[in-house]
């Protein structure tokens, strides 16, 4: 037992220190250190840049250390934090989404009339919470990380204070989020009671040899997994997602749908492959049911949506179902599949939301499928990229989305879950239908006469371009990305 703050501890914690420091610094700058509001407007967002660069350097050092020493993991704080390939992989995903979302937020929030510097502080602090979700290997660390992330998101979802929909979205997200956290932490207390420790490694040891159908273990499993499934918006615990996604500012929606989901998936994998691994016979059929229900609800509810944000919300619910399938298969291909899926999903989903962000102009909300009408004529570049993102979301080769689904289905076939594989494949057909409603609107429908040009800034064009490029790149030349995903295997 090491009671002091060691150099290893600092090394492992350094990305979180950077994020927390700059997050708090931005909050201070915005409220206090820069008194002139006109200067504040453009000065505060700039500070996101050093934050992201320094965090990336800290992560890069950890990455380099793991590669050069050939170590599997660096453990710190007596096992409360563990940097391994898994943690690094997810942390890179979070950081990239933070970067992209910060780039596009400025113009969007200006148009909404709610541009405040604290938004960037909240983004960085949320990323700090995600760091603990991916890196934490102690129930306390994971819980605090989850809440840090969630609290920032509650505020960001309700950021448009004068907008009724935004308030309502924040309220629903807050109440259901707090409820699911309470369920989750009740499960944690039972784990603590069974194992007498909060460290995942100790709990895993204490759980070994326990009967999977043991009632206390089952109760812990049930409460913990309901809490976790809420967070990844799996049906039947998905109700908050469409409302929160629709009401939130679109930049928040993009961040929420990508980074928060990736963090929750990381958290879910840590718990299910750690303390809950022993109860696999009990949770596997349950999760299979949840995955099927999630894909059903997500895909069928998306068909009738007219609001693009809501449509993408339901589509992101169905993507959570696909990711769960990888966990059910549970072999190396499945877990690698989840990692690939998270990576791919980050770029394609961010990209799709970025196009929706570009559609928001002064006095035009631009969230309906009809608002995309004639986009191909007016902005062929955006329309083409949107087509790439939608093809990828549907899982059509040669885009990246195909790769994600391919590994998930492969793992299902390898482990003999043929029925799940068939159901999953059938739902891809449903998905193609509703994604192509957007495509049809862009390419075939005539635009209304008085449409204003898109609010496209250099930053936005850059962000959409990078997302589109990576979506294509991962699909066409997947080798390096697959190798990266392979390093993230937990076992």
């Amino acid at each position, binding site marked *: 037992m090491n009671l002091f703050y060691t150099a290893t501890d600092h090394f492992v914690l350094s990305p979180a220190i950077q994020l927390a420091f700059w997050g708090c610094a931005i909050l201070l700058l915005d409220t206090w250190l820069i008194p002139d509001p006109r200067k504040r407007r453009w000065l505060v967002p700039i500070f996101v840049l050093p934050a992201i660069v320094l965090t990336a350097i800290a992560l890069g050092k950890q990455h380099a250390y793991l590669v050069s020493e050939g170590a599997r993991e660096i453990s710190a704080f007596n096992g409360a934090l563990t940097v391994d390939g898994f943690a690094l992989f997810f942390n890179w995903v979070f950081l990239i989404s933070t970067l992209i979302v910060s780039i596009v937020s400025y113009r969007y929030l200006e148009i909404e009339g709610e541009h405040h510097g604290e938004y960037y502080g909240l983004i960085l602090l949320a990323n700090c919470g995600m760091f603990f979700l991916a890196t934490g290997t102690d129930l306390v660390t994971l*819980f605090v990380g989850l809440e840090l992330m969630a609290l920032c998101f*509650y505020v960001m979802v309700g950021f448009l204070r004068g907008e*009724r*929909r935004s308030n309502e979205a924040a309220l*629903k997200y807050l109440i259901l989020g707090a409820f699911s956290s309470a369920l989750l*932490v009740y499960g944690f207390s039972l784990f603590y009671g069974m194992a*007498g420790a*909060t460290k995942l490694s100790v709990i895993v040891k204490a759980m070994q040899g326990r009967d999977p159908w043991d009632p206390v273990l089952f109760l812990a499993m049930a409460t913990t997994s309901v809490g976790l499934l809420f967070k990844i918006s799996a049906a039947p615990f998905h109700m908050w997602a469409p409302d929160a996604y629709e009401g939130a500012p679109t930049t928040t929606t993009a961040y929420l749908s990508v980074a928060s989901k990736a963090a929750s998936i990381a958290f879910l994998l840590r718990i299910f492959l750690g303390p809950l691994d022993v109860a696999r016979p009990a949770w596997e059929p349950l999760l299979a049911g949840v995955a099927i229900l999630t894909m059903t609800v997500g895909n069928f509810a998306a068909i009738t949506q007219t609001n693009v944000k809501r449509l993408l919300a339901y589509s992101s619910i169905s993507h959570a179902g696909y990711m769960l399938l990888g966990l059910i298969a549970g072999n190396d291909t499945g877990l690698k599949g989840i990692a690939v899926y998270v990576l791919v999903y980050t770029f394609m989903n961010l990209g799709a939301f970025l196009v929706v962000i570009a559609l928001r102009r002064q006095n035009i909300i631009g969230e309906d499928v009809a608002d995309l009408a004639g986009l191909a004529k007016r902005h062929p570049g955006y329309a083409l990229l949107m087509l790439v993102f939608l093809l990828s979301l549907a899982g059509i080769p040669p885009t990246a989305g195909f790769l994600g689904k391919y590994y998930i289905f492969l793992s299902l076939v390898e482990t003999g879950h043929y029925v799940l594989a068939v159901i999953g494949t059938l739902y891809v057909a449903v998905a193609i239908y509703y994604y192509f409603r957007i495509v049809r609107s862009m390419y075939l429908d005539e635009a209304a006469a008085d449409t204003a040009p898109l609010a496209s800034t250099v930053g936005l064009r850059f962000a959409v371009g990078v997302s589109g490029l990576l979506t294509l790149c991962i699909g066409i030349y997947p080798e390096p990305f697959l190798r990266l995903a392979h390093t993230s295997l937990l076992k």
Partner: protein
Amino acid sequence: MQGVPLSWYLILSAILFALGVAGFLFRRSIITVFMSIELMLNAVNLSFVAFSYQFKQVDGHLFTFFVMVVAAAEAAVGLAIILTVFRNRATLNIDEINSLKY
């Protein structure tokens, strides 16, 4: 351990937690719903403290402090959000906050 056995604490904690869940599901006022969530978190605290006492450890006590901090932070953010909702709608009944659906 002399006196009250561990199981009693756990049963009390489970009952409180179930009451919190029931309040969450059946009450219509946002404030009451929010209080129900706090009740659930406090039920969790009780079971952590009971286990911690049983094991003669501080880990559970520590977790309790974190849960309390999180509950306080959640209340602060939550009440601020509830306030903005109330400003825009002048109601705190869950059934009337329904502009986002399907």
